[in-house]
């Protein structure tokens, strides 16, 4: 006898071809009924033989399409209606939404083959996609995920496309961004200085390729924003890009062509990737992966000055495949933005604001609803870890170890900002936004907060922000009208780590970064915190020193070196400026707040070694020190002093060794890393002696430094500690929004 079941499937089931899959499956099992999107989940009404329905429900998960990630289906008996056939119904909006907006997908192998097939009507079409690939997050206006609710609403389907869209056996059945040369988006190439405007896919592409061959810098519209492209082998082109973008040192990513194995050939020419790195590069995520560069590559030396690594990326969109393939050589592909801002997404704005940077522009007319920068990964402490969440990896959905009591919005940190939205035991973390000190960042921040609430149908009832009094995110919180919870920066770092690993008992977390507002009004940045989310106690720190000139000290490591030397009662003969006025400011404490920052201590060391007296981008000094560090087992045992319940590491004995010019800089850098790793171990042992806690975490931007992170982790493990590092989220401030959520969800009685 035929019966009926109502089935609900949650998880990643929208925008991944799940409903057509359900349809085909239903027919296979001879079921009648329907399927529809319902908010963020899929609802199925199935009528048929009970045994067939059982097998169908099982297959929903076991045979799901590659991009789908369904959770086990929930079902209940339903009224038998005697349906005829199995249909896809129009989406039912206006119901409660479980969290899910899919990230943007790379172009799948099937579409890629079709794009390369001269017989196909989508031969070399830059916007080819199917249910298994193409843009999502950057395209969606609102859920449910249907074409009229996307940036494709203004592209009516042509007859051929409509046929594919409606044919259940077609791999484009209900592919929302589906398009072809007749009805879809189109390229336009513009070179304003030469009064050139070339519409049309092929002419625009060849215009762009030709401009690149002439050494020009071209701003190219991709999935989540514009890139600036230029020839990666030309010092002249890369130098021009650096000069115009006023970005003298920050490493630039390189896009390499992909033709079956040829992509891997290029990879082998430019870098020495591990199998893990190669797999991640080629994975559907298509992130930028930072890998060891080959000594003999013909890439311009200006791409990553002073570093032995390089950020590589394979094409992810059909357009990038065409560009990289036609050019046939590596291209610099860096985000088209002004320093610290989110990547630009609007053609007119790019032409206006990057007029002084780009010579030419490759636009298209598919709007980008919100920016998504490229994701960045790097291997550290045994696995690939994200540096930046972006296209492909975000919005990142995670389970919370402890549910939030009310829907909660977390505003993150001001730099490397991300925001997070949580309801019940689910949280979604936004892509990287940038530095909120720039007006465009704040605009996107506000836009995203608005849209995330809409996309997920969640109205936040409270806001969590950093405790820093001058953060722009904190100012926004004060005016948003919701109750505001403030979380200390380093508590958020520690809680973010706990959110990923859910330890049973207390954990000792080393949160080492630049600076964050500490509970005592000083700037923390080299802290050891003991406890659990909602109950952290600061048990360790570094000897404080002054930041002469406040924020200026972050851009000018020599200020940190001066202050560190003076703290130790030493003079620094290598100081590049007349030290007298700085000494005066230091003595009188004029705009020279105390900090326990490990990041600034690395900056000081970089200046003392002469590796970086100034830095044009955050982390530059630390990256160069890391690149320099040789392999010596040598370390100094730094004194650990007990002060007001804190184990303070006194780093001053390092200074004479760092200044000792008779030792190679590589040795001195290695000594610094090894000594600080030993200091981590010494603190951990001291705390374990008192608390018995044997679980240690390493987090904060300073642990992006692989030499330090791996060395400290190794020492701790050898000494019997269990060690955890962030893996799903970056170790840097991108994780702060998530940590704020975790911290707030647990907020209860403090250990203190």
């Amino acid at each position, binding site marked *: 006898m035929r019966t009926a079941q109502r089935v609900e499937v949650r998880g990643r089931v929208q925008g991944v071809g799940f409903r057509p899959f359900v349809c085909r499956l239903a027919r296979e099992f001879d079921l009648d009924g329907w399927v529809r999107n319902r908010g963020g989940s899929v609802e199925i009404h199935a009528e048929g033989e009970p045994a067939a329905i059982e097998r169908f429900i099982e297959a929903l998960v076991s045979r799901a399409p590659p991009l789908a990630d369904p959770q086990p289906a929930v079902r209940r008996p339903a009224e038998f209606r005697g349906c005829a056939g199995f249909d896809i119904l129009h989406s039912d909006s206006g119901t409660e939404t479980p969290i899910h907006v899919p990230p943007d997908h790379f172009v799948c192998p099937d579409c890629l083959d079709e794009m390369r097939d001269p017989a196909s009507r989508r031969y070399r079409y830059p916007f080819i996609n199917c249910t298994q690939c193409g843009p999502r997050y950057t395209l969606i206006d609102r859920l449910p995920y249907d074409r009229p609710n996307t940036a494709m609403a203004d592209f009516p389907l042509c007859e051929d496309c409509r046929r594919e869209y409606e044919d259940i056996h077609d791999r484009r059945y209900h592919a929302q961004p589906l398009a072809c040369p007749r009805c879809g988006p189109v390229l336009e190439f513009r070179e304003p200085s030469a009064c050139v405007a070339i519409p049309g896919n092929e002419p625009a592409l060849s215009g762009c390729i030709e401009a690149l061959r002439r050494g020009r810098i071209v701003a190219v519209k991709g999935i989540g924003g514009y890139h600036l492209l230029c020839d990666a082998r030309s010092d002249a082109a890369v130098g021009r890009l650096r000069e115009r973008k*006023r970005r003298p040192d920050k490493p630039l990513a390189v896009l390499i062509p992909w033709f079956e194995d040829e992509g891997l050939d290029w990879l082998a020419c430019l870098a020495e990737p591990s199998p893990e790195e190669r797999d991640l590069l080629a994975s559907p995520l298509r992130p930028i992966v930072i890998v060891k560069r080959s000594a003999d590559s013909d890439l311009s030396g200006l791409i990553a000055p002073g570093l032995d690594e390089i950020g590589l990326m394979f094409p992810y969109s059909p357009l990038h495949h065409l560009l990289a393939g036609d050019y046939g050589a590596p291209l610099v592909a860096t985000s088209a933005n*002004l*320093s610290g801002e989110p990547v630009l997404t609007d053609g007119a704005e790019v032409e206006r604001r990057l007029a*002084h940077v780009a010579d030419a522009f490759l636009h298209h007319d598919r709007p980008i609803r919100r920016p998504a920068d490229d994701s960045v990964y790097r291997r550290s402490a045994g696995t690939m870890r994200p540096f930046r969440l972006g296209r492909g990896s975000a919005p990142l959905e995670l389970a919370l170890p402890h549910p939030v009591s009310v829907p909660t919005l977390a505003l993150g*940190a*001001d*730099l*490397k900002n991300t925001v997070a939205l949580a309801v019940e035991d689910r949280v979604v973390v936004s892509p990287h936004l940038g530095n*909120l*000190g*720039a*007006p*465009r960042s*704040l605009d996107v921040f506000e836009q995203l907060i608005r849209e995330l609430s809409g996309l997920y149908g969640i109205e936040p009832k409270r806001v969590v922000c950093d405790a*820093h*009094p*001058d*953060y*722009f995110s904190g*100012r926004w919180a004060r005016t948003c009208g919701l109750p505001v919870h403030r979380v200390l*920066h380093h508590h958020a770092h520690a809680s973010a780590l706990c959110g990923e690993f859910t330890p049973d008992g207390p954990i000792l977390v080393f949160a080492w*970064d*630049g*600076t*964050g*507002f500490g509970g005592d009004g000083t*700037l923390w*940045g080299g802290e050891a915190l003991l406890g659990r989310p909602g109950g952290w106690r600061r048990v360790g720190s570094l000897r404080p020193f002054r*930041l*002469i*000139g*406040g*924020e*200026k*000290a*972050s851009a000018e490591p020599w200020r940190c070196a001066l202050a560190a030397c003076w703290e130790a009662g030493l003079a620094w003969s290598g100081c590049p400026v007349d030290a*007298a*006025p*700085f000494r*005066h*400011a230091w003595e*009188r404490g*004029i*705009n020279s*707040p105390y*900090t326990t920052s490990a*990041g600034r201590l690395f900056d000081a060391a970089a200046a003392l070694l002469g590796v970086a007296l100034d830095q044009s981008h*955050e982390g530059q000094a630390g990256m160069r020190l890391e690149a320099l560090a040789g392999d010596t087992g040598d370390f100094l045992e730094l004194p650990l002093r007990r002060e007001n319940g804190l184990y303070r590491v006194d780093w001053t004995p390092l200074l004479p060794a760092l200044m000792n010019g008779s030792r190679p800089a590589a040795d001195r850098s290695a000594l610094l890393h090894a000594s600080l790793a030993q200091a981590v171990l010494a603190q951990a042992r001291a705390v374990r002696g008192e608390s018995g806690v044997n679980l240690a975490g390493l987090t904060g*931007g300073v642990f992006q430094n692989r030499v330090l992170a791996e060395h400290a982790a190794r020492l701790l493990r050898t000494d019997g500690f269990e060690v955890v590092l962030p893996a799903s989220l970056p170790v*840097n*401030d991108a994780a702060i929004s998530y940590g704020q959520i975790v911290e707030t969800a647990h907020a209860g009685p403090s250990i203190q």
Partner: protein
Amino acid sequence: LAHGNGGRLMREIIEEIFAFHFGQEDLDTTADAARLPLDAGVAEWMITTDGFTVEPLEFPGGDVGSLAVHGTVNDLAVSGAVPRFLSLNVFIEEGLDIEVLQRIVASMARACTDCGVRVLAGDTKVVRRGQGGGVYLATTGIGQRPAGVDLGLHRVRPGDRIIVSGPVGDHGAAVMLAREQFGLFGSLRSDAQSVLPITEILLGFAGLRFMRDPTRGGVATVAHEIARTTRATVRLLETDLPVRPEVRSVCEILGYDPYYLACEGRVVAIVDAAVAAEARGALRAGGFTEASIAGAIEAGPARVILQTSLGGERLLPELEDDPLPRIC
């Protein structure tokens, strides 16, 4: 108490404590001077009051005495009034060197003569040693505003231009260097002076909307006041905001932003874009050679954007207290 530098906390204290307790109609805490409810014929009486503390009492380019006169005179001037009378309260700390007091009072008298105002009333108290920074002064000023002068942020529209009458931050930098006993930057002097010659020129333009003297908190804080009240975006142009090289280099060394340093002899004015160039020209011709069109009012959220000389954009925050580094 961290309520000293004109940021948000100070505004809250003024709004929530003083405005609350004095909450009668005549007292407008946002205006530099208030109308005196007396018959002045066709003109209006304006009144303002201010207290003055500075360390050191004497600094290059001025002292607390001249500051107490100029500060109050300038508040009347930017309100469009002609200052007439002052009242004066003096709080002297036991043990103050009488020579110093002499110099300060003399300097105050000179400033009164220069500005054409008379002290009509006054009072002096002595406070115990350790209870005052040498001398505190409080002045109340009364002036006459001609009929028909309508200045205020209610007249400001998107598109209007911002004029700055001269280099900014001199006073803040000079006083700070003197207080912190920096033996350097000898040529740097406070800009403390009467702004009457400036406001007289600007008042000649019908397109003048608003004037303010950017004292505590500097140009950035005035810009925030404008943004908050008009609910518009204030865009300042780094390349057009005059800053003396000495001030710039002090800021460079100490990590300060010159746009937050106090001025005591400058005017920030908002004018109709149509007269901006002409008004700037008149100021320059009147001896204010570095007067500049340094920004504009734009439709947009209430915020202050600094367009940097490198072409980027930076938000200028409203200062809470002394700034702490945000970099992580």
